[in-house]
């Protein structure tokens, strides 16, 4: 891994990094990856997933939920006429 990889990952994750941060992250990641790669030595074959959790469906019908529209609106960083306001995408 090199600085270019860190820059690419930061771009994908939408995080800005200073030059110093890039260097220290490179060092940290090298150490962590070196540690975690030991899992490669485990020969487990293909263990089928067994999930206790099952997909849960519910009837598609109207139900009452208690929410305060006002409280939700207040959490928007910016809003107009009761709508969330964001920058133009295109």
């Amino acid at each position, binding site marked *: 891994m090199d600085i270019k*990889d*860190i820059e690419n*990952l*930061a771009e*994908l*994750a*939408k*995080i*800005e*990094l200073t030059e110093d*941060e890039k260097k220290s*992250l490179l060092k*940290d*990641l090298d*150490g*962590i*990856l070196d*540690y*975690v*790669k*030991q*899992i*490669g030595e*485990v020969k*487990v*074959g*293909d*263990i089928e*997933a*067994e999930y*206790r*959790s*099952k*997909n*849960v469906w*519910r009837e598609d019908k109207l139900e009452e939920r*208690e*929410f*305060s529209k006002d*409280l*939700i609106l*207040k*959490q*928007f*960083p*910016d809003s107009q006429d009761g709508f*969330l306001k*964001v*920058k*133009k*995408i295109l």
Partner: protein
Amino acid sequence: MLDIKTLTIKKAGEMMRKGELTSVELVSACLKNIKEKNKELNVFREVFNDALKQAETADQMMKEGKGTDLTGIPIAVKDNILITGKKVSSGSKMLEDYVATYDAFVIKKLKEAGAVLIGRTNMDEFAMGSSTENSAYGPTRNPLDPSRVPGGSSGGSAAAVASGMALGALGSDTGGSIRQPASFCGIVGMKPTYGAVSRSGLTSMSSSLDQIGPFAKDCDGAKIIFECISGKDEMDSTSFELPKEIKIKSSKDITLGVPRDFLKDGIDKEVVKNFKETLEKLKSKGYRVKEVSMPLLKYSLPVYYIIMPAEVSTNLSRLDGMRYGLRKEGESVFDTFKKSRSAGFGPETRRRIILGTYVLSHGYYDAYYNQAWRVRRAIGREYEDIFKDVDFVVTPTSPNTAFKFGDRKDPLQMYLSDIFTVSANLAGLPSITIPSGLSSSLLPFGIEFTGPLDSDISLFAIEKDLRDN
């Protein structure tokens, strides 16, 4: 004078039912402790201004004969659990002013029981850390020795109970974040079976690992909280109702499994000595202790440090400055994402997002993420096999006692704090830490018991054999 530091949830409840104590008196005593010590210890991010009003309501409930075991009991809540109308920041600048728009399932349950929610407690940012040093609002200090960390990430919740600022607390445990701080602060902390407690209203960190659980001074108290907050919730499809009838075995019928190979390296000598002494004590109470071989256990931590950051990087992608949280305007919408996320996230959060992005990226996905899941399942199988022979797997909770601030500068060194706790999260198993004595420098030890799926209630019964002599 009411000594909150030694008062248990059960005892306080009995006193209130007999009319010897009111919730207003109890909550006032906690508030006094908070006022005296919170400035130094930084336990609470916020003390709720309606705590006394909640106590009055609880006293009324008690008078009307509608009291439960938790009515009027002051409970501290980790800052990543939603309470309608209260701020919930997850220890991050990103959500500094975010106000919850609904109650977490566990909060609904506590409110129904008449518990008093006294305040929200400090934590490592987005529950990532083992010391609370990653909180954007400064670290919490260990009430037993303020030059040391309280553990993490639920360090504030553990410290609140240990310092008499609350009688019980809620935390969340993704890789040990309830058990390790409970151990460092000398109290009981428990991570339930995955799904036994709903995650609805818990700020997601790593969804396949996260569980909410209780802190209390003793197992009776932790059990009272656990029984209140557990159960099926339609808002969390992974939640379920634990079987009602669980047979609690007597000590003479219990076999403990000790994964000796796993306990060889990197553990403080005093921790090893205490662990051996505690096992001897249990043997004298009739427990059988058996050495077991669990060769995959040592891979738990590396598996965890692949799966967890992968889930963190996807879960935290919702924090982009658009719908809630911090927004820093940039030239374009992508600039706004970047500026907001860079201003909002601290160093450890960034590190894990970048690491998670890497292990999930094209070309590395199979070697890291897929292999980690295969090993995770194999670890689950290893436990299943062991539980055919033993009732609980037992280890120290942490390889060391509470350390000093700044002692774990290298991230990997900090990650090793979780070595004995993460495997229960990977396998979805219930796990508890119980205090097991003090070190030569008077720091608490904890011993950890991990049981089979759904054995949650039986974990609370072990403590009596550790405490009585």
